[in-house]
């Protein structure tokens, strides 16, 4: 019974931590972008502008949040929930430290892949229900991009599964005790990172939202709190991909001196900053370039990674 209580506490803990991290990321992103663009960023509200997040939250809660009369009302309201819940659920299967997990599934990695497929529904439903031309264009782009990049995202992780012999994220971390998979699976890590950026629709792969041409893409008609939920999802997605890279390729909680959770946090923060650095430095490619990059470069590379990993594993056995 006490196990059940601990797990329920973890459920709420994961929810609260994931949501506050994604809220904090808004501040971090604005400060880091400002740093790299040689300006101040938010620095007025509270120490280092940290309370800006709170001020923004109060403001957006009190903003008019309307359902357009031309939209498909029911789907329009459900779409933010459809997009946010799969991302939250993936946080449930990650083992953050020995014994710290909501659910220690033996198919954790498979669960992540399944959930990442589900986020496509939220994007398409939001764009379709809005009944606006920008929204529809944005959601079409998003769907095609996320589907294309998902194909090799799953293939790029198979090298890790072959090395660890498990889909369980806990076992994968434990199998990395001697050597982080970032070394034998370096190409797999790069492919997964690329796919992860495209899946979270972040720059340089943010064509579904490209504000220069599509205003905001699939969430152009959203306002107030529903709009904010799409952003919470985006930052949750960044956190999720960063945590997963740390767990799958950088040994998760393993590390000397510091407690396990701190190690995972440090590795995750590194990749989050990397995501923001990408946004600060890269221009956006054309849509045809994006698609041909995915199908003609990354997919063959992911297959090659699989073949080479298998060959080497057989040879050294």
């Amino acid at each position: 019974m006490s196990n059940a209580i601990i797990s329920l506490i973890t459920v709420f803990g994961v929810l609260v931590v994931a949501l506050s991290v994604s809220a904090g990321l808004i501040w971090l992103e604005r400060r880091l972008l400002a740093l790299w663009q040689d300006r101040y960023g938010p620095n007025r509200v509270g120490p280092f502008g940290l309370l800006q997040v709170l001020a923004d939250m109060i403001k957006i809660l009190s903003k008019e949040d309307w359902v357009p009369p031309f939209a498909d009302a029911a789907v329009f309201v459900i779409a933010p929930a459809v997009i946010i819940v799969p991302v939250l659920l993936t946080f449930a299967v990650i083992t953050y430290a020995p014994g710290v997990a909501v659910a220690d599934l033996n198919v954790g990695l498979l669960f992540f892949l399944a959930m990442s497929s589900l986020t496509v529904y939220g994007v398409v439903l939001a764009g379709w229900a809005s009944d606006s031309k920008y929204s529809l264009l944005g959601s079409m782009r998003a769907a095609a991009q996320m589907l294309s990049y998902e194909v090799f995202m799953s293939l790029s992780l198979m090298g890790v599964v072959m090395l660890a012999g498990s889909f369980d994220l806990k076992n994968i971390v434990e199998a990395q005790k001697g050597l982080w998979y970032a070394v034998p699976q370096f190409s797999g890590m790069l492919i997964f990172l690329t796919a992860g950026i495209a899946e979270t629709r972040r720059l340089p792969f943010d064509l579904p939202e490209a504000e220069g041409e599509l205003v905001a893409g699939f969430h152009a008609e959203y306002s107030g709190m529903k709009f904010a939920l799409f952003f919470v999802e985006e930052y949750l997605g960044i956190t999720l991909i960063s945590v997963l890279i740390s767990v799958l390729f950088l040994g998760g909680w393993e590390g000397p001196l510091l407690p396990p959770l701190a190690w995972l946090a440090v590795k995750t923060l590194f990749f989050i900053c990397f995501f923001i650095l990408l946004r600060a430095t890269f221009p956006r490619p054309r849509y045809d370039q994006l698609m041909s990059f995915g199908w003609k470069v990354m997919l063959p590379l992911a297959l090659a990674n699989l073949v080479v990993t298998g060959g080497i594993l057989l040879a050294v056995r």
Partner: protein
Amino acid sequence: MTPDFAQSYVYVVALAIVGVGFVFATLGISRLLQLRHPYAEKLSPYECGVEPLIGDSWSPFSVRYYIYALLFVIFDVEAVFVYPWALIFRSLGKTGFAEMMIFIAVLLFGLLYAWAKGALEWQ
């Protein structure tokens, strides 16, 4: 199915319920706090401030998207076959590896065919 196995999913479902609850709770709080001032311009679709152009926005879209959807179905379903193979790779040995190489060769041939047919070009 062991009870332990089923129990793990109970917490996943619990998190799903809490997550949905969070979304609708924030929307509800926001509903209580906000003011509403609808007027004609605000109620029209956003098209950069100009009058909405003629035509339904639920209009036909480029067939290119459909081709990518087809490609996705083919390749992702084939990728699913790789998952169990990767899991028990070590116990399968040389035979298993050779079999998967044949499978990947077929997969790669399919990709090259789509490539040669111009299905990967965005015209």
